[in-house]
């Protein structure tokens, strides 16, 4: 076999593997899931005057984070249909009237062995929500939830970039991302800081 042919075979093999690893692998690894409802952050902020994230994603009196608001919060305004959209009908008929919680797929959900305090990060460190959650709260679309078939967690945890190189500050919520941010702020915490 000539050298040229050897290079060709090697290059072809390399190219196919790279293509499989960078293009096909993410498509196979992540399953695309739709949220149960179409929700518009921007519309709520602009038309309903709910401009602050904390108006729905509140901290409780004891400092714990309430996360995605419970159905009773939504029912405060949507006890009856407020429009003719399909999402509005699903919200009221499927969830609010029967008293069912909406099974939102949480992009930032962490494993159960992680303890994270929103209160410390928001109140003491004055971090803006967007520093970890990006500007999702300003958009008017519901992102597709990409779920890792093996770990079961959202793609937001690893970050959109498969290489995790040159990613934006808000991208990724892995332990190393927490550590990097803490290091940048000269705040080293031990294992028990998060794994209590």
């Amino acid at each position: 076999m000539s050298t040229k042919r050897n290079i060709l075979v090697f290059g072809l093999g390399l190219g196919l593997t790279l293509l499989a690893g960078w293009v096909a692998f993410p498509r196979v690894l992540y399953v695309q899931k739709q949220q149960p409802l179409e929700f518009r952050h921007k519309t709520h902020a602009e038309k309903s005057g709910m401009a602050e994230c904390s108006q729905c994603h509140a901290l409780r009196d004891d400092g714990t984070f309430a996360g995605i608001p419970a159905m009773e919060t939504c029912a405060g305004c949507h006890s009856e249909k407020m429009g003719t959209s399909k999402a509005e009908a699903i919200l009221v008929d499927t969830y609010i009237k029967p008293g069912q919680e909406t099974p939102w797929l949480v992009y930032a959900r962490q494993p159960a062995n992680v303890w994270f305090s929103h209160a410390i990060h928001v109140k003491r460190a004055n971090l803006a929500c967007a520093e970890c959650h990006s500007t999702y709260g300003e958009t008017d679309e519901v992102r597709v939830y990409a779920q890792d078939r093996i770990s079961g967690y959202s793609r937001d945890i690893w970050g959109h970039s498969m290489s995790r190189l040159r990613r934006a500050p808000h991208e990724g919520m892995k332990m190393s991302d927490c550590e990097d941010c803490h290091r940048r702020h000269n705040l080293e915490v031990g294992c028990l800081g998060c794994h209590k």
Partner: protein
Amino acid sequence: MKLTRRDLLWGVAGTAGLLVTPVPWKLLDDVSIWSQNWPWIPQPARGPVEVKQSFCTLCPNGCGMRVRMASGWPVGVAGVASHPVSRGALCPLGFGAHQLNWHPRRLRTVRHRASSSSWEAARVAFAKACSEGPIAIIDGYPGRAASSVFETFVQKRNGSYRTVPGPETLALAPYESWSGVPAAGLGYDLENAQTIVSFGAPLLDGWATPGRFTRLWAERAAGSTDPQLRLIQVEASLSRTAARAWQWVPVHAGSEVALAEGVARVLLEERLVPARGPMPPMTLAEAAEQTGLSTGAIVDLARTMVARLPVVAIANDDNPAIAALNVVLGAAGARGGIVRRSKHAESYASAEADVESARAVLIDSTVPWDFAPPTNAEVFRFAAWDGGTGTSDWLLPAPGFLEDLTDVPTAPASAIATYAVAPSLLKAPPEVQSAAQFLGGIDPALITVEKIIHTRCADLFRGRAGTLQGQETTSVAKVASVQKLEEQLWKGAVWIDEPPRSAAFRCELKEWPATVGSAPAMSSSENWSKAWRAPVLPPLASKLYLESSLREPPDRRNV
């Protein structure tokens, strides 16, 4: 199959290509996370997360705890910084306590001589024993509402109530015989001491309420060459406390009594203290020979001890010579020494005394697993976890961590009286019972733990003394009703008594206490490790022990 050059090139190219794709690294990461989420690994239910205040009930110190609950299940534990005694600290066992209820050695069935049995059979057997002869009940944490149930039960049957005192209470026992004040009513006024001489007591390794001394030491001594609080550690090995103390006095194992006598002799002969006797029988030379120190070192130690007053010596167990040294130093009944915290404390008989004549002995789950009563009677032992080899006739499953309502009386060695209520945050499994519930099944006329706690709250309200320390500090005199007081206590507040008008007590030492036997077989620090050992450990506690060397077993120490 023949391997061709082309195959080889494909393989090399594929491997090289694979290594510069995210495939291996992402798969490695995913598989590690996947392995953490296998279906047989307990996971807290997803649901609202709340934090509840409670108290650790794994030992009598009752440290304040914030319990993080997810969907009603405890998933994490942290200290309460506002707790007046524990001050935010917990020991490794406390930090992992929420895992204990899932421990594989959790007891869930009644056992009779290694065979499976039933609660009914145990009740019948105990009732029969009660009718046939005297019974004894052994309690690990006296002073609780459950302790009152035990005392009432044995009083009605002419039985005996016995306790297994911890090392801190044992160390205070000699003063009881010299002053008449019950050891349970005495405590160490560490907050006002300037010099503390510890004879093997692991003050920085979880002695008494772990946070009390460690916080004090951090505030007044840590990192200073001339600290406000001088800690002198007398110990054979370089323990964690010895390594961090202001001064470590290495002595031969078991020679603490000799050193106490040698120091007392110097104090009296050189008139370094106002006391004039009694003189210990041991000469300075004999003390030096036994301890391995020079006579000069003992003289220097005595002078250092009184250089900054008040000074108090802390023994690791029932050691009359070290108690006598405190009397010579003037620390017994004085500010910064050993003080009387309450006038209402009771005196308890130790479980070592006269249980051998009992027909049956009931051991509460608060008694350390290693304790074996000196008796041939039928033994009914309550325990939440099986600690391994045991000699009990009956093994009765008790409620686990946070599964039983209990109150938390004053911690041993505390200088102030406190009271708290640890509600049951978890529903106990139907197959477990506390000893108080078991006795209630035999004698329905017994008052329940809940009613006794209610009565105690009413007594506190009527007393109008002290403060309630919760999220806010409120004087009991300003609490509107007993219901309000009880409500606050159930939510995690601690009642703190007012400091006694006079913490002094008179301690008469007519002659120097005789040394019992020769040098002890085990060093005092070894005794401590043995007395403290938990029957089982949750994984988090095991990790903390391993990584922090806290309460390391004696065989791992460098002597």
